[in-house]
């Protein structure tokens, strides 16, 4: 029972980690919440669905994120950069509006029913690991999740751009004084974040589903995770994603009626104990 619970939590957390780290990066860098992040995920999923129908899952897994990266770049240049001087609430609301528009456009194009995406043959079926019979696809998902965590950690800790991002997230004004070009960083982070959303979207197909409500569900989850994780803390977001995944899965097993509320309860409990979130994130002003 427990190993299954943990495995399922990890699978869900993998998806959430990819999504929320992207959100946390933009938040840490620009102090802006991209409320349209869920819609990007949905876009990645639907594009992935269409491509998969024509060229197969693996092609979709490569092309969708690439296209999403372009969308991310567009978001950066057409929305985030022109509105830099506005208050954070305003920019966040604009991303919300854009997200709603994107979501509605997708519903208009694809209709309101859920779509199914089949896992590719190489990842179909189950395998027995540690006396647990588990779907191969979910193990793949966990692998990708861990991999992306690892890559992110490597990037943030061992490259110049990663260092700059950590610096700006910790203390924006000092970083700017030291000449770090946040515009270029921002462009990189937004495109990357969108690409990650694309990967997550494609991966979500065979695991969850591709349906009209997925943008809302995902953005709410990500927001809760980013808040629990603490502003400017990527590590915090990752821990929070794991926590969230576990609470969500455990909730649906043990308290199915209240499972939908479990994340909210988690949010309230964590913030009561640690008002600034888990991570060490931004230095207090």
């Amino acid at each position, binding site marked *: 029972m427990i190993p299954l619970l943990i495995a399922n939590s990890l699978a869900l957390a993998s998806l959430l980690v990819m999504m929320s780290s992207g959100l946390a990066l933009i938040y840490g860098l620009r102090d802006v*919440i991209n409320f349209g992040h869920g819609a990007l995920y949905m876009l990645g999923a639907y594009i992935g669905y269409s491509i998969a129908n024509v060229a197969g899952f693996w092609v979709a897994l490569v092309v969708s994120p690439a296209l999403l990266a372009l969308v991310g770049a567009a978001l950066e240049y057409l929305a985030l950069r022109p*509105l830099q001087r*506005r208050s*954070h*609430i*305003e920019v966040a*609301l*604009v991303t*919300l*509006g*854009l*997200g*709603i*528009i994107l*979501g*509605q*456009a997708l519903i*208009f194009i694809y209709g309101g029913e859920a779509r199914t995406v089949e896992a590719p043959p190489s990842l179909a079926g189950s395998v027995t690991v540690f006396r647990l019979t588990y779907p191969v696809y979910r193990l793949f998902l966990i692998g990708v999740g861990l991999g992306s965590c690892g890559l992110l950690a490597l990037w943030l800790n061992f490259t110049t751009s990663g260092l700059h991002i950590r610096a700006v997230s910790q203390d924006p004004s000092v970083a700017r004084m030291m000449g770090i070009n946040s515009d270029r960083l921002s462009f990189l982070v937004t495109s990357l974040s969108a690409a990650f959303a694309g990967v997550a979207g494609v991966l979500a197909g065979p695991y969850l589903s591709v349906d009209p409500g997925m943008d809302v569900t995902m953005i*709410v989850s990500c*927001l*809760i995770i*980013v*808040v629990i994780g603490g*502003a400017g803390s990527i590590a915090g977001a990752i821990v929070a994603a794991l926590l969230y995944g576990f609470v969500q899965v455990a909730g649906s097993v043990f308290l199915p*009626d*209240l499972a*939908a*509320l479990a994340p*909210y*309860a988690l*949010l*309230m409990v964590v*913030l*009561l104990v640690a*008002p*600034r*979130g888990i991570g060490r994130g931004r230095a207090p*002003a």
Partner: protein
Amino acid sequence: MNGEAAARVPVQRDALRAPTARAGWRIGAGAAALLAFGVGAVAPQYVASDFILKLADGGLLLGILALAIACLMSQTGLVTIGAASVYGGVGYFFAIGMTEWDLSPLAAIAVSMVVVILYAAALGALIIRTTPLAFMMLTLAAGEMISHAVLLEGLRDYTSGADGLVVSFQGTLFGLESGDFTNAARFWAIVWTAAWVAGLAAWGVRRSRFGAVLRATRQNEERMRFSGFDTYAPRLAAFVFVNVIAGACGLLHVLNSGFVSPESLGLGVSTNALVAALIGGTATSAGPLVGGLIFAFAQDEFGARGFTQLLTGIAIVLFIVVFPGGVVGALDAFVRGMFRKRQRESD
């Protein structure tokens, strides 16, 4: 003070309050407002159809809720997206109070409002110390929890779950009968009055020292503490204040519609109110009220074709990027621009 006072630059102690206008201007403005109030309360029922009035009733109710949200946003910088849970929740308590606890309508209203105040105080006490984003997410969390609670099997006897409750009362309430609330034309005068009361209350807060403290705290909370201010209590008071407005408005809504359901307190209503506030403009009292009306009529016009959500999204982007002051803000800027132009021409 001393002989050198004349050489010093005078600092008014009430420098923070808006400059007091000349008496004549104030009397004139007051009279105009009174006239506008009177005309607005009475005229529409003679000019507009019942259908239009019904839309306007709903629009103005949404506008008052939007005003509550806008007031909190503009004075404290905090965004609440759980306001509908108070707006709808108060309707449930009103209904349950009368049916389950045999309360008179007036007592049920009193109980409901007390519940609102206690709820807002408790929730506010917990969540105000967090960051603005965390605050918003927590209001969402609270709202969703309440939405969910209403649908729980265990409470079905009280809330009738997804079916909702029919609400009506016998006798009179503040001298009015049930029919006065449900009739579209007669309700207009009631909701118009309520809108003016709420609007004046919000205006009063904006102009007061309390409002100034809130706005300064929004700008630089740390410096406020370093200047001896308690930054927590004023914001808590503001949060309770706007929830009281939302609650009162919710009572009007349930009296008017005679019905309360999980939709009344759902996220949809909260976001509609937020969008209405943005459309009208959050800086004034008139803004959100106008925004509510615009939203109601736009929804009727375009909603039928299934485009409400899309238009909501477009409205949000439009009214932040192009018209950040909302409709009222844009009009205000336009009028000021005209004044300035005329002044320049006459120079």
